[in-house]
């Protein structure tokens, strides 16, 4: 045993030493990485809509080797000038290469960027050290397909097996008790009671009465459960025509929800974005980490975009998404009221959408669920002059130490949602 511990100790101290050394060595590398990262974020914010970091052309040229080309054809200083104000460089006529580029790309004017020298160096550094293609992260696949219980669910099987075992034990125990009692009677010399067959026990009137009462209760409860959930689709997770990942867009890339769902602030519908909104980014991003080009190609098909020639055709076809969150026709729901006025987070009703690879309905969307929230949510009095008319109510409740909830100003009345 002692030797084992020694080896363990030794390895720990060695490991510590090794990591310290590595850490010290790495400082330099780390700051370079930092710069590249900074460059990447500037690039994505300003350049990515017209340039790739590869050789591929878009609105502007692919930037792989751009620094070298400028060094050869002009100078790095001119490149800085060019980035800050390309038109000035062209007008000056100092750099024939610049004018050539301008002609080559159909005289599309590059936007002038007010970037500092450091920023530009960072971008150039990033261009020279483009990100390496990363393989698939296998962990992404482990999304829950459905959250409803099913017979194939391991927990269900476990429960069934356990109940069978328990039932068997119970049966054995009762037999055991019966036999022991019989034996004790025999030992005491008392008359041994006749063994009652199980069939007769089950057809006993008292047993039947109790069982049927239990059955009725069970049926009633489940009927109530079924009817209240009728038409509700909690955990509904249909397959969409495009394997769009909210985890990637909203979670990893941190795209604001309302960038795409722009209706949420304005009106009743949050709006599924039209395909041209996708193209704001996907004109540049042709490949995704998960499915490569296949899924993004579906957007191109919808808007009839040819990534090779970078042109739109005239045969667009709308994308037919499957609607997940459905409310019955007699329910009026308005996103603007909740998102814009109430300041409710998207996740409050839609769940951890930024973690969903494939979206599912997180809540029941039932009336009880709505009402619960309306009873607890506080009205945003201070921020909105509209609520001045409830001033007195506000004051009164404040004195009592209570908060004014949506319910207090009529938020649970029928005709707030049904008309």
């Amino acid at each position, binding site marked *: 045993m002692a030797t084992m511990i020694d080896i363990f100790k030794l390895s720990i101290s060695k490991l510590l030493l090794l990591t310290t050394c590595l850490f010290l060595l790495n400082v330099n590398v780390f700051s370079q990485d930092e710069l590249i990262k900074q460059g990447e974020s500037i690039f994505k914010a300003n350049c990515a809509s017209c340039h790739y970091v590869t050789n591929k052309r878009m609105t502007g040229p692919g930037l792989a080797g751009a620094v070298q080309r400028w060094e050869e054809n002009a100078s790095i200083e001119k490149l800085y000038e060019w980035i800050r104000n390309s038109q000035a460089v062209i007008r000056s006529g100092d750099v024939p290469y610049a004018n050539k580029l301008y002609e080559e790309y159909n005289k599309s004017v590059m936007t002038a960027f007010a970037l500092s020298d450091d920023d530009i160096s960072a971008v150039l550094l990033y261009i020279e050290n483009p990100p390496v293609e990363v393989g698939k992260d296998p962990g992404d696949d482990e999304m829950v397909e459905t959250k409803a219980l099913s017979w194939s669910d391991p927990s269900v099987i476990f429960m069934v097996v356990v109940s069978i075992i328990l039932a068997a034990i119970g049966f054995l125990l009762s037999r055991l008790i019966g036999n022991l009692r019989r034996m004790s009677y025999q030992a005491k010399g008392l008359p041994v009671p006749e063994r009652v067959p199980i069939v007769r026990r089950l057809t006993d009137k008292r047993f039947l009465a109790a069982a049927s009462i239990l059955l009725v209760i069970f049926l009633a409860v489940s009927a109530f459960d079924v009817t209240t959930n009728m038409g509700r689709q909690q955990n509904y997770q249909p397959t969409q025509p495009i394997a769009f990942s909210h985890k990637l867009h909203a979670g990893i890339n941190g795209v604001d929800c309302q960038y795409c769902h722009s209706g949420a602030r304005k009106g009743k519908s949050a709006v599924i974005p039209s395909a041209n909104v996708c193209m704001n980014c996907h004109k540049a991003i042709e490949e995704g980490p998960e499915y490569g080009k296949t899924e993004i190609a579906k957007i191109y098909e919808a808007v009839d975009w040819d990534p090779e020639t970078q042109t739109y055709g005239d045969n667009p076809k709308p994308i037919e998404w499957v609607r997940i969150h459905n409310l019955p026709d007699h329910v009026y729901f308005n996103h603007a009221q909740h998102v814009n006025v109430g300041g409710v987070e998207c996740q409050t009703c839609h769940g951890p959408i930024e973690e969903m690879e494939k979206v599912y309905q997180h809540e029941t969307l039932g009336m009880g669920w709505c009402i619960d929230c309306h009873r607890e949510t506080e009205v945003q009095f201070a921020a909105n*002059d509209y609520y001045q008319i409830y001033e007195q109510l506000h004051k009164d409740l404040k004195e009592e130490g209570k908060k004014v909830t949506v319910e207090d100003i009529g938020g649970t009345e*029928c005709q707030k949602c*049904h*008309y």
Partner: protein
Amino acid sequence: MANRKFWQSYEEYTNDPEYVEKKHNEFAEKLPFASFELATQKSTPRRDFLKMLGFSVSAAAIAASCEQPIRKAIPYVIQPEEITPGVANYYASSFINGNDYSSILVKTREGRPIKIEGNPNSSMSPNGGTDARAQTSVISLYDNARLKNPKINGEVTTWEEIDRVVGGDLREIARQGKKIVLLSSNIVSPTTKKLINEFGATLGNFEHVSYEPISYAGIIEANKKSFGKNIIPSYDFSKANMIVGFEADFLSTWLSPNEFLGQYSKARKISRKNTKMAKHVQFESLMTNTGSNADERYIVKPAYLPMAVGALYNAIAAKSGAASLSGNFNIGLDTNTINKTARQLWNNRGASLVVSGSNDPNVQVLINGINNMLGNYGSTIDLNKPYNIGNSSDEAFQRLIAEMDRGQIHGLLIYNTNPAYSYFNTARFAEAIKKVVVTASFNDREDETASLVKFFLPDNHYLESWNDAEPKKGTFSLAQPCIRPLFNTRQFQDTLLSWMGKDESFYDYLKANWTKSITGNWDKALHDGVYEGKVKSAEINYADTGGGNLAASATSAASAIIRKATGIGDQLELVLYQGLIGDGKYANNPFLQEIPDPVTKVVWENCLLISKATAEASGFIEGDLFRISARGNALELPLLYQPGMADNTLAVAMGYGRTNAGSDNCNKGANVYPLVSYNEANKTFDYNIKGEEFKLARIGGTQAIARTQMHHNINDYLADSNEPSQYDRKEQLVREATLAEYKEDHWAGNAIGKKFRDPHFWDHHMVTLYDKRPELKEGHHWGMAVDLTACTGCNACVAACNIENNVPVVGKEEVFRAHEMHWLRIDRYYIGKDDNPSVAYQPMMCQMCDNAPCENVCPVSATNHSAEGLNQMAYNRCIGTRYCANNCPFKVRRFNWFDYQGADSFIAKTAFDNDENVTLADDLSRMVLNPDVTVRSRGVMEKCSFCVQRIQTGKLDAKKEGRALEENDIKTACQQACSAGAITFGDMNDKNSRAFKLTKLDERSYGLLEELHVLPSVKYLTKIRNTEQLQQDALS
């Protein structure tokens, strides 16, 4: 006061025992179970019940266990910048159809027009209101009967083929120098007129004839004679202190009714501060909607109406010193009445207006003379701003028929007019059109005329078209398409341009014409919808024929009038009038068909109106079928008693009895156009038929008439007692006072209201069963004030309510069963004796009682009260016991007996469907539904919601902007549609709002059935009449 009689129908007038019993019944009708009694008498109904229960439970279980359907959400590929799904857009446009014009705002949702509002920028729609025709015009966009493709000889073809064949044929006719005629409805569009002229010029021998079955040619002919001007002058009722009408229904149908209604209301709307009210006197033979609103109404037989005009002329001439007309006009008239009216007119000279609805130029010449003597030209009448409305020529149409008959016309293009239905001699037209080589119709459907032509070139609906209008000189407006053409149709003007070989679209043509001739600021004009400023170059010239002479023309007109009226005596006369349905072109609009006539309250058909006295003298009974024959035509109509009709006079509405309107359900009533005649001397159509010109015969048999007035009656009796209650309820429903009384005491007519306004009164004199409800002091308390003085009963609010709230059309058979669904009805009350009663209109919507009797009786609490004072109705909670409707004292609740609009998942045309099948449950008709309002399913109760969807939208808009709610943020549909400005809606807790001032402070304000302590939130303002004495006729 107690002896004033208020009544709504003859059953009530005569206290018909059957009616009285029906009134006391719990439900208006028995449940429609044929075997109901049989089922309850069976020995084992319990088993049947269990069977039914088991069946329905298992059926429901099967239906419910089915998988949820997969619902798609399909976004735009490229979302238009101005569209946010779920948020409505409004576009300024113009409703133009022949003589009907309104400047409008079109509400679109996700690109489909769903509602029409008035354009408040336009001087043609004062108060921003619209009429019922403009409101329902959006329905005609989604009309299944519209032609979906161009056709040649009934075969579907393409527009290229049409251009090749028809364009080629027309060029060939033009090459031969033969004549081509464009026969159209009246056109108010200056650009279209210009285009037609240019089109004609390319053909050479071309004529454009405007034809309208309901003509105003008499006014044009008269102005030619009096002033040498070929025009209809514009009228301004708002400047008048004294208005006299001779059978002119200017508030409902005559010339520019929506504009006149706004002006009229402006001249008559009184308040605490402004007690100046124009007086309105009407002389007429039938009871028109306008006449029913007059302060004083005098009944004159149709033949003697021109004599009354002559008598008035002489009475005023005597005052002004002008030459009198020779001859005796005082036949069948009360001289005192004429003299009194003349005196009142003379006292208001320069600020009075006399109008006549007659199409007889002789009458109109005398009217011109009267207005001239009164100095009204330049104040209430403007000859320099003539109307383009009503500018059709009866003479030109007569000449056209003759030329067609002689084979002189080789090409006939028919645009938006239907002479095969509306011309009096249909057979002659049908014969004549056979002699024309090339016949084409631009009409939107295969109507009566279209079936006589070879080419169908369906025009776009006006909501799919570019257009402009100049209804009155200098008043311009634009129309823009609010939806892509639903079918393969093409705008008439584009077809003309294409035949002219031009590449440009009518949009380019229109824009070029506007920027060149009208205004340089096209974008602003398009945004505003109207342009009423200085015009760049007036291209439109009005014919000035010269040679007019007021005095001379009056003299000759007078002798013609006397000649015509001589010897009429007491003989039976027939008058044709225009109803809501117009000249017949709206026949296939079920919404308009089901809106009751303002006076008769008849829906879906026309009847033969007669005074009860005349009918009884001849032994006729209401409902009897009669045949009218004249000039070889015969038609059959049921008889209907109409109070306030002249004796020995019959009246029928035009526009019914179509044969090819579209749906068979809309081809109801009888076509009375064959009774019209053409007067050669006057060059006008004549809508009055003398007794010797027609025969009336009872053909045996009766016909039930669908009338809505007695269907939903306010309880005016005490349930367990036949004794009159402490307050005569009917009299208290409509409170009235004269202007003089009001000036003296603002509480005039509303003494009981004053008593109830006193907070101590309740505590000391009344007992209430209701708990003391905490007053709704916090937040909003919605309320409405309806000014009975301003309301004329025009029905625009009813139409607006129906379309805003997805109120279904039920059909004539259902109306018989009192199943009409209108959330807002207008109760029409007669006051006094039936020979000439005065009339009051009272819009009845849900009164939003704060102690609502309906709420207490609902077993499932589907109807309950909100903190904002709304009486809420939750459809999905309702189980249809109908207790609430029964307990509602105002009878404003409606029950869905059938699935009228396809709300249920059960398929149409099953036992669950409306048996009459006039439902608008198909996909095209459902496009007009308001997506913010639930489509109610079968078996639930519904009622007015105070347009809660508008309240919520208004509140949300204020919240989004973080500001307090303002008064104009929320307008109910009825309020917005009202051209008279009679309805005021708002927050009664907002001390600065008009709604608060009118409902809580105004002395005229009162609630209905206040003694029941139901605390209605709708208040009515006492009707003030500018007359010496209210109608006082006794009960006896």
